[in-house]
């Protein structure tokens, strides 16, 4: 029997109900997905079954994980944050501006760190050889960008609105439109790879990847906000999305900085 959306919907609902019960019984809020989340079928054989081993970073300031790799101006070109200018012509699609701040759990800006993004084109096709979705490639759009956060932790990208696309988790599975983000913090423990979504996408409830975040408030934090003040007249629509990094950072002066 092929797996249907109704099957996945039932599994998603069951995982949400189980989470609600855990919280009602006093368990902590889960900000991140569980790696063991069967509605996303690819997770089944790719998550550890042993519990993770906790390392108390407060006990050891020498851990290399409390430091982060560094990135600088030579790791980018000037237009790396403008995905509409990387080819000779204009990409097809609705131009958008995506901007926000990179913060730690205390709300402090993370400065001078690398944000990398990648996305499908406006037709929902990635510029990846193994991507065989029957939608057109755009010769003027690759869909890769990079930025360094500024002194206030801000980043800024110009791109086109990515399209939703089908995938093979189950019959008639569609991913809501999203942009992939890869982010470094002030410590390697804060490393984050995630996806940013767009407001009011009707596909949200059907998508087991987004729904793997079972906490409603946490899931909302993956959705950007339309921000008219970021929209550029005659050019692009603006979306605001702040990124908050989890994980401990160094308590000591960073060496060599």
């Amino acid at each position: 029997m092929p797996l249907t959306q109704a099957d996945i919907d039932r599994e998603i609902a069951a995982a949400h109900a189980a989470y609600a019960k855990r919280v009602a019984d006093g368990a902590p809020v889960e900000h991140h997905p569980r790696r063991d989340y069967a509605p996303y079928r690819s997770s089944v054989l790719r998550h550890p079954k042993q519990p993770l081993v906790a390392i108390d970073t407060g006990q050891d300031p020498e851990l290399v994980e409390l430091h982060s790799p560094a990135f600088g101006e030579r790791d980018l070109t000037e237009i790396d944050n403008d995905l509409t200018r990387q080819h000779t012509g204009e990409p097809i699609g609705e131009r958008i501006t995506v901007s926000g701040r990179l913060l730690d759990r205390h709300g402090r800006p993370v400065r001078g760190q690398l944000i990398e993004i990648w996305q499908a084109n406006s037709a929902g096709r990635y510029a990846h050889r193994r991507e065989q979705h029957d939608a057109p490639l755009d010769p003027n759009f690759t869909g890769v960008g990079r930025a360094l956060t500024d002194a206030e932790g801000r980043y800024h990208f110009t791109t086109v609105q990515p399209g939703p696309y089908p995938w093979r988790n189950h019959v008639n599975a569609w991913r809501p439109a999203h942009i992939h983000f890869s982010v470094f913090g002030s410590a390697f423990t804060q490393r984050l790879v995630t996806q940013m979504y767009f407001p009011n996408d009707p596909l949200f409830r059907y998508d087991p990847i987004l729904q793997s975040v079972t906490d409603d408030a946490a899931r909302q934090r993956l959705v950007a906000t339309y921000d008219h003040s970021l929209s550029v007249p005659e050019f692009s629509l603006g979306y605001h999305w702040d990124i908050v990094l989890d994980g401990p950072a160094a308590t000591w002066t960073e060496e060599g900085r």
Partner: protein
Amino acid sequence: MTITDPSGPDQVPPTPSHTVGPFYGYALPFRGGEDIAPLGHPDTITVHGYVLDGDGDPLPDALIELWGPRPDGTVPHVDGSQRRDPATGGHLGRNGVEFTGWGRVQTDANGHWYARTLRPGARGRNAPYLSVCVFARGLLVHLFTRIYLPDDDAALAADPLLTRVGGRRDTLIASEEAGGAYRFDIRLQGEGETVFLEFE
């Protein structure tokens, strides 16, 4: 100077993690990502291995990041891992001289990865290790582990993490091969499952 108070209250809830998905391959890997050691450096080591799933099958679409200190144990804060070419928009890669300590490599179609980096030095009470972060399609939150090198039994015996994980410690220690390379397989699930870490 970076000072934080980890004992303070969390004020801002974090952005949830998501999988890297299957299509990062044209975005995240970069030229020379796996060649972390400066060219010709005498302390260069090769580490390599497979990433395996719960059936023991290799992952052709995993992404590994390595992060480690210099041979003297100090941590580099040097940029330039993925220098870009302003003329073409392509990658120049590293400059061959500086050591950034960080690298990134995608598994190949056989699920194999390798990297050449500098032999990490010890820091504090810890035996020398490389920090590893694993990303993959199907992995909703990346996984941290460590590659310890097998050379110094006394240091390994005294390491705070290795002493805690009992019979699973061998999953964290690379094995030295005849040619001098170090083999380190990452088993995401099942028999011989690698010890994965969370930082608090």
